[in-house]
């Protein structure tokens, strides 16, 4: 037994030896998200935001004498690949990660980062469960579904005051989570939704659903999900003469919805994080994106940028790159970023993140309601 122990020990030491990292003057930051697959366009938003931040921070002299280098990892928004990517990142000796994008990828990956001592800031995953596991190194610079749901609900209760409300979602983590949260909140206020139903993501025909909504005399629909399905629902509703008011989360707040729904998207209500690209203070940055031919209007571009700001500000303040020290500093301090003043709570979520209700227009533009 003793000999077995010593041999295993020797083997283990060898493992440690190979895993030791080389110190260098560049600090690698992992950027993990989908570069391929159906949601690649969202991964792209996170990527351009983070890369722009890295470029500008380097231009301003880097961090603690180190240059930053962004390394892009593709998880294709597939949980299985996300685990492989997380292991690869750990393996590559990277200790700071921006990502992942899809909540279902972030969830298994964050377990690995926490155990391996990697600091992770997601700029896009909004599922509340990610930060509920008591992880110390997992943060996010975007609002949660559990914040957005009640926000949308309070607007519905106070301003829309629907008679017969329906809640539809796309049976995915993001959509169903939001829809459930809205449902719970409006029920507390005494509005009983007449319908609560899922549709199949990727479906094209919603005529049966619309006939059902029509039969129930629904006058207001909250949709939890993304723009392709809601766009078609709006378009087909108009064709079938179903004229209820619709509302959706930031997942539908994409100019593409107007391309799909055309006229029918006029008057859609959308809860969105403040559009940071409209903020006068960010105009220089917007110009920088435009100069590179990149689109800064996506909802995850600025949160990704600010995630890097938070990370590097902490590095400068603590003079260290150790994830544990950074995490401790991040919990105790406030940060001035492009997405405003950010403060983190004990779970690693933002203390506050404000949403705005927008009125959507047929040409893809939007105006704030309140």
């Amino acid at each position: 037994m003793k000999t077995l122990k010593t041999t295993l020990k020797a083997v283990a030491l060898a493992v440690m030896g190979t895993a030791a990292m080389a110190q260098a003057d560049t600090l690698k930051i992992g950027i993990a998200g989908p570069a391929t697959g159906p949601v690649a366009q969202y991964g792209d938003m996170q990527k351009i935001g983070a890369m722009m931040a890295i470029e500008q921070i380097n231009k301003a002299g880097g961090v603690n004498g180190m240059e930053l280098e962004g390394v892009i990892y593709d998880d294709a928004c597939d949980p299985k690949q996300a685990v492989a990517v997380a292991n690869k990142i750990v393996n590559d000796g990277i200790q700071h990660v921006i990502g992942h994008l899809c909540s279902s990828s972030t969830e298994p990956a964050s377990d690995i980062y926490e155990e391996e001592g990697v600091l992770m800031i997601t700029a896009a995953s909004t599922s509340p469960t990610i930060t509920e596991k008591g992880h110390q190194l997992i943060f996010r610079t975007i609002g949660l579904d559990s914040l957005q749901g009640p926000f949308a609900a309070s607007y519905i209760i106070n301003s829309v005051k629907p008679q017969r409300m329906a809640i539809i979602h796309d049976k995915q983590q993001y959509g169903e989570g939001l829809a459930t949260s809205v449902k719970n909140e409006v029920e507390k206020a005494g509005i009983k939704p007449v319908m609560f139903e899922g549709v199949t993501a990727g479906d094209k025909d919603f005529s049966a659903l619309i006939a059902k909504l029509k039969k129930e005399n629904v006058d207001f629909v909250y949709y939890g999900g993304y723009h392709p399905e809601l766009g078609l629902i709006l378009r087909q509703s108009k064709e079938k003469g179903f004229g209820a008011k619709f509302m959706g989360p930031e997942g539908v707040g994409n100019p593409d919805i107007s391309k799909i729904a055309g006229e029918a998207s006029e008057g859609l209500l959308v809860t969105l994080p403040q559009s940071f690209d409209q903020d006068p203070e960010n105009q220089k940055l917007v110009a920088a994106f435009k100069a590179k031919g990149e689109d800064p209007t996506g909802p995850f571009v600025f949160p990704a940028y600010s995630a890097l700001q938070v990370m590097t500000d902490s590095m400068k303040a603590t003079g260290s790159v150790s994830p544990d020290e950074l995490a401790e500093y991040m919990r105790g301090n406030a940060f001035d970023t492009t997405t405003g003043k950010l403060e983190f709570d004990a779970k690693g979520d933002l203390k506050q993140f404000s949403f705005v209700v927008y009125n959507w227009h047929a040409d893809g533009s939007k105006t704030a309601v309140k």
Partner: protein
Amino acid sequence: MSKIYNAIFAAGITFVLACLMIGVKLNTEGTTLTVSGASGEQWSWIVGGIVLVFLAQLFADRIDTLFGKLPKPKIGALLPAEEKRATLKPWLLAALIVGLLVWPFMVSRGAVDLATLTLIYIMLGLGLNIVVGLAGLLDLGFVAFYAVGAYTYALLSQYFGLSFWACLPIAAGLAATFGFILGFPVLRLRGDYLAIVTLGFGEIIRILLNNWTALTGGPNGISGIEKPTLFGLEFTRRAKEEGNVPFHEWMGIDYSSSYKVIFLYLIAVILMLFVVYVINRLTRMPIGRAWEALREDEIACRSLGLNRTIIKLSAFTLGASTAGFAGAFFAARQGFISPESFIFIESAIILAIVVLGGMGSQIGVILAAIVMTILPELAREFSEYRMLLFGLLMVVMMRWRPQGLVPMKRPHLELNQ
């Protein structure tokens, strides 16, 4: 002359294929749809492609003869003679197994993790190999049994706190039961009907898992699934339960995260060896012979008094239980599962592994699983083209080597004269 016509025809076809789908791009400006021509560079690629096809068709026979002259590598020639092989085999096997067990200590964590994933696909491939390769039943919904295995472990561990080792046989058993329940009515169906029914079954299981939020967490999946332990020793930094000692404290060494990855890999190796051994024995038993006999000629089998329902069911059930095995391990490795991991394309990949490897051949399936999981990793630089190449590879392989990488060889006995 006809050659020129042929070549012109082929070039014309290429032009039609390319001109609209590659040569023109759809954009949206505001809310109206517009088209724009592709860049000059892309058009020059298209023209180049057309010229290439034209020339290839024009000189088709010459190219063929050129290829014919190339010596074809023969696998048979690389192997030692038959008698030698018999004596070498146990040594080779032993060396291979030792290699498999020692190897992870030498390489990086990412490589070990990838190897673990490969082993899961090997198990899945071997399981489907029984159904498709040996018994000749086309199953397009194999991923359903994989899902059953994974969810069995995840749910039992979440609700009843059962350990991985206790759940492993339960997961395999439950997947087998599902295989049995599905198999009983549908095995009367002919090949392609069976294919679509199993495909439908795979979709049904996935949608049910997605819709039954109260039990399975719906699209949120199940997270925080316990990792396997080594006789109660955990591979975490700190023990999760009171009184438990983490592995590294028990060993008296420093904590390293690699241990857990290597431990998972070793479990996978052991499971895989177990599966290989069981299936290897089964194919030599009467039931294994009966599977193949049934695949070759069903009517002859029945007239010889073999009960086809029992034979088909046994293949289906055993295949399903292997998938259940792999599923439980997948849940343990992943720590998080959701219905997204069990979509149709997974079934297609597993089927591709079986066919690519050579239906019925265990070594072939193992090789194919390695190729199919490692190639996409190597091709990460071309990540945009990854799936395109994957599809192309499937087509090309079927043309080039339809019998698979390593065609099956029946275990046989020769009598010395």
